[in-house]
């Protein structure tokens, strides 16, 4: 097992470089999970969705105050200075979904039955915009009925009526589907996991291969009494050991950050999924290590391969947000199937053979990818050897 032992020695020497990746991954995942949890919150009772808006109020009348109170049910008010650039920035970076300006003299005109409108700056056609519009129109259309049909109604009376009318809301029944926040969160974690996993394994393996592929060393090894198949197999074993250890470190740290859901069935499946994927990464790294000849080229190839695969298969951006034609290309990559399997697992609520079947198919595809990468690399090794 000389070759295997040497593999472990080389990896051990480079461990700090590889650990940098692990640390970066953990920091990024941690920050992202902090921001992501807030948006995915689900619960058993129906909650009004709130959206951030900026309300610039140039009037202070009972009608407008009533409107503000009504708007507060669907919106959180964000304080932004009334300057064009500050408002534009807030909208661009989605700190607010719209900016509403109540112009001077609005109430007076409204009470006289004139046609008036609030000024609004929003993201065109956005769903939050529709939501706020509904709320605005609801309030003022109901108010209009009173103004037009009750002569001489005062603002105070009007607001009293509106308050009573708008108090009742539709009763909503929630059917539990059992989506768990912690699982969606973990799903995101494991999807993201594909990037550092690929990077670390490719970097580690290629460093190893470069040393072994050194011409002089290779020639010396060729005349040793160990058969070349034996060397190759020890190499594969070294590769898999390294993969397993890096996988273990990352999964453990991943679970430590999300310790609440360790005992879920979903988590168990996610861990299995990442393991299957790690095997495939191992195959990819073996192939790259066999093809690339210089250290500088490895960084380049590593970046292009990992970023490329991760970007288009939904590791960084959710798969639903990626165009269908891009996803078609992505389906030729193992990362796509890995993310797909994870997303399916996160949605599972019952674990029977029937429900788990699609996930198992995805696993098989990933394993097949891994085997294919290994066989191609072994074939290439053999071919190169016969040249020398």
């Amino acid at each position, binding site marked *: 097992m000389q070759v295997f032992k040497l593999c472990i020695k080389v990896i051990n020497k480079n461990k700090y470089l590889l650990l940098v990746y692990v640390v970066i991954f953990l920091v990024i995942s941690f*920050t992202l999970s902090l921001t992501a949890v807030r948006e995915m919150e*689900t619960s058993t009772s129906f909650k009004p969705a709130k959206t951030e808006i900026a309300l610039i109020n140039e009037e202070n009348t009972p009608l407008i105050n009533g409107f503000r109170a009504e708007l507060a049910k669907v919106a959180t008010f964000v304080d932004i200075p009334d300057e064009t650039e500050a408002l534009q920035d807030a909208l661009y970076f989605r700190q607010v979904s719209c900016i509403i300006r109540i112009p001077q003299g609005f109430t007076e005109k409204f009470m006289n039955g004139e046609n008036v409108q609030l000024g609004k700056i*929003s993201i065109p056609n956005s769903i939050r915009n529709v939501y706020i519009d509904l709320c605005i129109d609801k309030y003022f259309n109901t108010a*209009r*009925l009173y103004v037009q049909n009750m002569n001489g109604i005062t603002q105070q009376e009007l607001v009293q009526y509106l308050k009573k*009318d708008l108090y009742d809301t539709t009763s909503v029944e929630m059917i539990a589907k059992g989506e768990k926040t912690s699982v969606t969160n973990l799903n995101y974690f494991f999807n993201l996991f594909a990037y550092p996993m690929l990077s670390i394994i490719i970097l580690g393996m290629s460093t190893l291969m470069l040393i072994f592929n050194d011409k002089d060393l290779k020639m010396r090894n060729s005349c040793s009494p160990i058969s070349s198949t034996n060397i190759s197999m020890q190499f594969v074993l070294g590769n898999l050991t390294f993969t397993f250890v890096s996988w273990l470190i990352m999964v453990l740290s991943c679970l430590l950050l999300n310790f609440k859901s360790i005992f879920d069935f979903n988590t168990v499946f996610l861990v299995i999924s990442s393991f299957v994927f790690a095997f495939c990464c191992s195959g990819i790294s073996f192939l790259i290590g066999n093809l690339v000849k210089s250290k500088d080229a490895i960084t380049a190839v590593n970046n292009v391969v990992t970023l490329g695969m991760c970007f288009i298969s939904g590791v960084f951006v959710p798969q639903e947000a990626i165009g269908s034609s891009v996803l078609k290309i992505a389906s030729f990559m193992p990362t796509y199937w890995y993310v797909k399997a994870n997303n399916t697992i996160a949605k599972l609520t019952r674990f029977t053979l029937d429900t788990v079947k699609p996930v198992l198919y995805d696993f098989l595809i990933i394993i097949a990818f891994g085997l294919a990468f290994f066989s191609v690399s072994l074939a290439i090794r053999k071919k190169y050897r016969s040249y020398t």
Partner: protein
Amino acid sequence: MFIHIFTYRLKCLLRDYEGIFWTMLFPLILATLFNMGFSNLNSAEMFNPINIAVVNNESYRQNQSFKQTLEKVFTGDDRLFNLSVVSREEADEMLKDNHIDGYIIAEQPIKLVVSRSGIKQNIIKSFIDNYMHTFSAISNILEKDPGKLQSLINDIESKVKYSKEVSVTNAEPDNVLIYFYTLIAMACFYGGFLGMGEVSDVQANIKPVAARINTAPVHKLKTFFYSSAASIIIHLTEMLILLAYLVFALKIDFGTKTSYVLLTTFIGSIAGFSFGAFISAIVKKYEGFKVAVIVSVTMLCCFLAGMMYQDMKYIVATKVPILSYLNPVNLLTDAFYALYYYDTLTRFFTNIVILTGFIIVFCSGTYLIIRRQKYASL
């Protein structure tokens, strides 16, 4: 002498494939990936008619006014809902399979059944609320004056829209663009590798080639300027290729002020080059270490400018505004952003002036450090 050094330097640089990869190919690949990954990113926030169902029971069939109200919102191009009228069991099934976002049971009072509380479900609820509130208002009014029935019916028919879009700029707030703007900024600062190379190549303690150049009977500063000219020309060309690729192939919107966009790219390229030269001059270590410093500083600046998480740019600008002016990558990104999004040029010029300040600091810093460096033994 200029032509000699310049042409040979140009040849050297063009044959340095790794350099070309990082300064040109990598940004191009990243741009393509950004485009593939982010093309639909905003689709989640766009409104599409919500799929709902209504349970086809006796009370729904008899409730004419509710039927009519529903009809108004599920027809036409700007409809709110796609409606299917089904039995309760079917509705349940559809909800479970995520074919609809909720279903309505038109009893007294009207009930909504959903499986989660998201914004779509709230829109459905808001719509039913509206119907109920109108009803409540009508009964209040009729209680006071039963003769108003006809005029009320007319008023309900004519719904008024109470908000008007008053856009302050022609540009849409398309926030995916910021990723591409930071990408150009990053590519500009990857030009730092070229700047670094130029300085290293005259530092005899770093490279053997530099040692040879130092022994040649040409003024060192002249050699440095001549070969830097070659580097800058190459980097500028690379940036123009990237810009052309973004504009013509990926159709990224840069607004209408093309000449200013070119000016920004030009200044960005110089800033990146001088940044690399400056780092190379102050970091007195081997080349790999210099590369690591340039990459990590650039990446940190890119992160703060919003390349990995775009809200970061806003957070920095509102919480620690001074940092957004001290970050050259952000200044560059912000210049592109200001050109695209604002009608006025004040913010753009502020960015450009500060960026020019950075260039002056980098260049004079580099000059002061590398001038008159002498080696006792080569």
